[in-house]
């Protein structure tokens, strides 16, 4: 191994590509990375027994206000 940014190490380079081990103490951001997601680009991830699907952080919510009550003809 080397101590300068100009050097290279096969061992640590391999370590960088290995899957990140995850257990119940793993911080959520590291779990997201282990699942292949960039924590900065997703707002939520839903894991089921059959799939893992994320919702993007830059998902464009509809530009309309939610209505607190049911609309009627008075609206």
């Amino acid at each position, binding site marked *: 191994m*080397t101590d300068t940014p100009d*050097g*290279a*190490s096969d061992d640590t380079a391999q370590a*960088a590509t290995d899957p990140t081990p995850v257990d119940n103490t793993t911080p959520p951001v590291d779990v997201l990375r282990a699942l292949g997601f960039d924590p900065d680009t997703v707002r939520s991830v839903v894991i089921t027994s059959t799939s893992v699907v994320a*919702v993007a952080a830059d998902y464009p919510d*509809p530009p309309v206000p939610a209505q607190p009550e*049911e609309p*009627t*003809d008075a609206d």
Partner: protein
Amino acid sequence: MTSPAAIRRMVAQMLPAQPRFGFITAVDTGQQLVTVAFEDGSTTTSLSWASSAYPSPAVGDRVSVVPHTTGWLVVSKATPRPVLVPDQQVLVLPSHNYGGEQEIPTDGSAPGAWWWADTDATDSDFSRTFIEQGLSDAQAGDTEGHRPPYNYLHATALTYPLAASVPSGATISQVQIILRCSSTFAGGSGSAHPVAPIMYAHTYTALPSGAPAWAPGYGPIRFPTFIIGEIQVLTVPAAWVTAWLASTIAGIGFYAPATSLDAFFSHQDSDGDDSGTGQLLITYSGGS
């Protein structure tokens, strides 16, 4: 005479070292040192970090490393390198379309039953994409059968196979429903009256009974008005998509107890309409 190679070495020695980017592969909090794998494939151990600006280095962080008086220093977390993964889109038909219609007598007598139709993949695309909301104008009664005049109150609850429509590992960047204003009724069927779609979320996984019970905390959302022949592509809020993926909600619906909001929104025409009306448009990237 100085050789060209010697000149190149002299020039190289005069160039200042440049900041570099890499990914942290190990953190030694005891020694306050990290290992960084640089983007050219090289790796460096035992790098210090600037704890004031970057207090909590973590494995996987993309960081900038700059030359310092005593060596190299990890100074900050860098913006992730953009990953140019093309978006993909898929159009999805409803897996179920629960049609609701309640007859409300104008004389104050008891209203009729509610939900009457569950159309699914065994039915035509036309019926699966048939969406109606609103309260009809008064309908004529039947003097012979002593049936008083009445109004129809309409609701539609739709389910779509959201999670099953994208590959595992995907990131959904938008979920939309395509609606076409097919007919409006306030002031007479086929009027040019503009109508706003009123969208709710629901938890129905079978044909409902009783008055519509929409999922609390998810809407209603009033979208902009449109008139007969126009198409809107409505974005489902991100929080709804997360809830939908987690089965906290089962789908979306349209409902409005108002005659001014009585309309057919969308169905695929039998004349070959291919605009995707009544379908869910899912935009995503990645996945296996």
